[in-house]
């Protein structure tokens, strides 16, 4: 064994380990670790790999349901969708790498998530990218945003997996810390399911794919598990960002799927965060075995790499396959045909020890019990406390805020909140594999579900929606997160699908701040409550902490990816087109947010809260206020109603009311349908009655467009489901006119053409502006 480095006690701090964690390692090993061992513990016990701050809270999420084949803790969640088909789903974050090097940060996020999917034996069929960036009128944020989108486009398109869904949100809270989350879906025959474990002693560990370089060393510990501060603009952390090669990944996908198809590997694991250390120790630890790794045979990209660099490098496009010795030659042959490098770098042992050697029988460089890297990782019950000014902030009514501007122009507010996301998604191949029935830019994406054995359509569909809302979660992390889950369910309903399973990406600030831990804990409870009501299990997730800059945390941003199933694609939304006279209806939980069809709103319900609304934040610059009430059961019932109405052809199309309120939702329907509208919306009481009625965001509401002759049937069906419904008006004409019941005239009256032009131009202009500005 190499000499123990004498100054490891100061090295451990540089590697991101606390003194207590260092002491614990000494206790586990019954000696001081050497430098290599210390580096291995540092990456494996990092927040990113060990979930040490969040583990005890995550345990409160519901994870079981009959459809669940694999729950949280493996590379991806896997659910049974019928017909012998299993779907693997996973979401991850690549926030900090993208803050430093937007293109590569986002690109390698795509690569990593795909490996998690095909590791399970599934062929990746779709990607989704929820993105959050700073204000687009600032050159740096603009550069980050453009780089992120280019990175996803450059990698995802080339690797040959369509990007079919996403979000694009801009807010000051993400100025220095963008959120780049990425989700992926894969399909496989249920019998093909493979788990990343090494059970057979004597098997070979085969390292496949790219050579190992110095890129990404310490990515999980240096980058992902610490915030940014003023002295560091990110340039010193740039070497911790990996560089992606989508062509290598494409060949790796094909080679791995062929190996799995041929049954030549017993376990397979991608090398992501913490590289070879994580892959070898996880496969061994899960299989209850040990592993010997020979660093001298690992193909290297650079000369003179130290063993600790080889063991912790996060070089992309690498996989570790566990192969019976009898199959090694065939595995190497298949890899060679796909031009994928493959090298036997180790073997499975029975002693539970992860042993790193220099040469097959060479010097032992590290020797630690494999399970201690995982099972003995620390778990912290960090202090948590709601912010001191919580009650005060919630007591504010943004519409009554005396510091805000006076009465606003509702039409201007509406137009300012419209943005067509096609500038983003047209840069992504969203059609490959010929599955995209409803593409990006709509409530949810709907894909054909085909049998992975032979490509035969099942007639059914997979639906996916990715959702987050930092404004809601900032106002109230618990209710806000529940609202996010419900919104995702409503989104699926709008394409006629029922929710099946959920994965989450929890983007929060510094967990050593008690208010951040409180947000995280509250968000998890809110998610659990909503999932329970929907009957949806959480089958996987990712926690991204330390999203902070100069001690300021981002707004809490849990993002969910909800997977759904559509029973019969023939019965999908009829069409976007809205012929003149098409009725506009609002359906939702009973209560003032929908109101009664008759009457004049005389019995005013008291104001619906505007806290956390996009209008309050963006148009009144007010982040205070309470969230509107949430009726979980009523929202779930609305989702079931909408899904059924779409499938029965009772509606032409449906659209949920979300950020920006009912005015934005109606205007979006007009833009998609190419029709004007004249509509009255329910009054929601309180000060600024027009703005409140138009832009408040009470949850659980959905708009439907229906033939005038079907309105009565819909109203009956809604009533039978215990829901309120109300006809708001009709589509037609060339103007978007929205007013309030019992009020004369319209609060908003703009030309459809102007609405379309503003919506279409919003993002192209935001990006062109900076380019022009720089050129000038």
């Amino acid at each position: 064994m190499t000499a123990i480095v004498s100054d490891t006690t100061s090295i451990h701090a540089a590697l991101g380990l606390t003194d207590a964690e260092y002491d614990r390692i000494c206790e586990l090993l019954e000696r001081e670790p050497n430098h290599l061992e210390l580096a291995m513990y540092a990456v494996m016990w990092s927040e990113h790999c060990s979930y040490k701050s969040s583990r005890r809270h995550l345990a409160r999420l519901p994870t079981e349901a009959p459809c669940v084949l694999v729950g949280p803790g493996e590379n991806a969640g896997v659910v049974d969708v019928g017909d012998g088909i299993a779907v693997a789903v996973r979401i991850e974050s690549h926030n900090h790498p993208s803050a430093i090097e937007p293109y590569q940060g986002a690109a390698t996020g795509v690569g990593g998530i795909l490996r998690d999917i095909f590791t399970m034996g599934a062929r990746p069929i779709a990607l989704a990218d929820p993105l959050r960036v700073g204000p687009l009128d600032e050159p740096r944020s603009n550069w980050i945003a453009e780089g992120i989108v280019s990175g996803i486009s450059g990698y995802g398109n080339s690797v040959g997996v369509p990007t079919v869904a996403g979000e694009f949100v801009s807010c000051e809270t993400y100025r220095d810390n963008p959120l780049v989350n990425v989700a992926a879906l894969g399909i496989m025959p249920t019998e093909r399911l493979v788990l990343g474990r090494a059970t057979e002693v004597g098997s070979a560990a085969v390292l496949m794919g790219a050579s190992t370089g110095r890129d990404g060393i310490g990515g999980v510990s240096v980058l992902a598990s610490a915030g940014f501060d003023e002295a560091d603009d990110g340039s010193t952390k740039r070497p911790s960002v990996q560089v992606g090669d989508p062509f290598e990944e494409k060949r790796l996908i094909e080679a791995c799927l062929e190996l799995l198809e041929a049954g030549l590997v017993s376990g397979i694991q991608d090398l992501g965060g913490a590289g070879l250390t994580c892959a070898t120790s996880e496969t061994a630890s899960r299989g209850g075995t040990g592993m010997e790794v020979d660093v001298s045979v690992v193909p290297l990209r650079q000369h003179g790499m130290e063993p600790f660099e080889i063991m912790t490098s996060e070089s992309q496009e690498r996989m570790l396959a566990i192969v019976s010795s009898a199959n090694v030659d065939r595995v190497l042959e298949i890899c060679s045909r796909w031009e994928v490098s493959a090298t036997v770098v180790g073997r499975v042992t029975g002693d539970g020890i992860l042993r790193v050697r220099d040469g097959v029988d060479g010097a032992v460089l590290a020797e630690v019990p494999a399970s201690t890297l995982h099972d003995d990782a620390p778990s912290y019950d960090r202090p948590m406390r709601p912010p001191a000014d919580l009650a005060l902030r919630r007591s504010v009514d943004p519409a009554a805020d005396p510091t805000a501007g006076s009465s606003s122009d509702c039409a201007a507010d509406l137009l300012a909140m419209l943005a067509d996301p096609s500038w983003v998604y047209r840069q992504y191949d969203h059609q490959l594999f010929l599955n995209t029935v409803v593409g990006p830019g709509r409530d949810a994406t709907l894909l054909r579900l085909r049998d992975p054995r032979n490509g035969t359509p099942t007639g059914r569909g997979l639906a996916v929606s990715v959702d987050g809302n930092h404004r809601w979660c900032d106002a109230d992390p618990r209710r806000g997160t529940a609202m996010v889950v419900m919104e995702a369910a409503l989104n699926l309903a709008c394409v006629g699908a029922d929710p099946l399973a959920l994965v989450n990406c929890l983007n929060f600030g510094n967990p050593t701040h008690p208010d951040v831990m409180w947000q995280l804990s509250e968000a998890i409870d809110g998610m659990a409550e909503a999932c329970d009501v929907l009957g949806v299990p959480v089958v996987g997730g990712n926690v991204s902490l330390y999203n902070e800059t100069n001690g300021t945390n981002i707004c809490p941003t849990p993002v969910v990816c909800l997977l759904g199933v559509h029973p019969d694609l023939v019965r999908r939304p009829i069409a976007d087109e809205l012929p003149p006279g098409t009725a506009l209806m609002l359906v939702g939980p009973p209560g003032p947010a929908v109101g009664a069809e008759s009457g004049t709103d005389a019995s005013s319900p008291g104001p619906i809260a505007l806290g956390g609304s996009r209008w309050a934040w963006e148009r009144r610059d007010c982040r205070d206020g309470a969230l509107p009430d949430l009726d979980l059961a009523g929202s779930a019932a609305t989702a079931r109603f909408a899904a059924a109405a779409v499938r029965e052809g009772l509606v032409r199309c449906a659209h949920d009311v979300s950020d920006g309120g009912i005015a934005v939702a109606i205007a979006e329907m007009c833009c998609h349908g190419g029709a004007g509208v004249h509509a009255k919306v329910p009054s929601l009481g309180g000060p600024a009655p027009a703005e409140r009625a138009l832009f408040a965001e009470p949850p659980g509401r959905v708009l439907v467009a229906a033939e005038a002759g079907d309105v009565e049937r819909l109203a009956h069906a809604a009533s039978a489901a215990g829901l309120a419904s109300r006809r708001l008006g009709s589509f037609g004409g060339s103007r978007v006119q929205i007013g309030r019941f019992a009020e004369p005239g319209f609060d908003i009256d703009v030309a459809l053409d102007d609405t379309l032009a503003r919506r279409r131009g919003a993002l192209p202009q935001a990006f062109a502006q900076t380019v022009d500005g720089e050129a000038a």
Partner: protein
Amino acid sequence: MSVPMNVSVGVIQFPGTNCDLDTLDALAELGARTALLRSDETSLSGVDAVVIPGGFAHGDYLRTGAIARFSPIMDAVASFAGAGGPVVGICNGFQVLTEAGLLPGALRPNAGLSFLCQPQQLAMASVHHVLGHGLSPSDQLSIPINHFEGNYVCDRATLQRLRENGQVVMRYVANPNGSVDDIAGICNEAGNVVGLMPHPERATSELLGSTDGRKLLEALLYAAASTRQAVGHHAA
């Protein structure tokens, strides 16, 4: 239009090709017998027509199509094309055909320097080629594009020749990428080699938004059947 029976089409797969299976599916659905041909093969296995599908052959490294043109199978494709066999390059396949010298000109990055995946309105310009049967020069088609390098360029003399010979196959109704003369697809002088940027295989089902791509693929099957009758079956 009735689809000819028993036509076989080979779809070439380079490392990095990704529209190969979609193209096979679309052709098979029209009744063609299909074969996936790997780029390291040296024979076309007696197929009646060849499609070079979209994707990122060899990662598009160096330049789109620049490495793929040296693949062993490209010699066989050149001989097949020289003998009058129908060859169609879609998107990356178009780029490969220009690099291989089977079609004139080149495809540069889009004028907006951004990848574009979107439905596109196209106007047929000529029908004297292997994608023309059953179509007329006044036809408009809606077929998606999906490319970063779709900006067709050629020198002035070549452009004049393309126009005079009726080698412009289709044009964009609203030019998305800066292509000279709005060109979306061209053919060689004989009309048996066609390159186009739009993806007909992505427009073969009402469920996916358009069926206009079927017309082009059906025309290819017709051409393949006709050529086979004219020149006899190619040796395996």
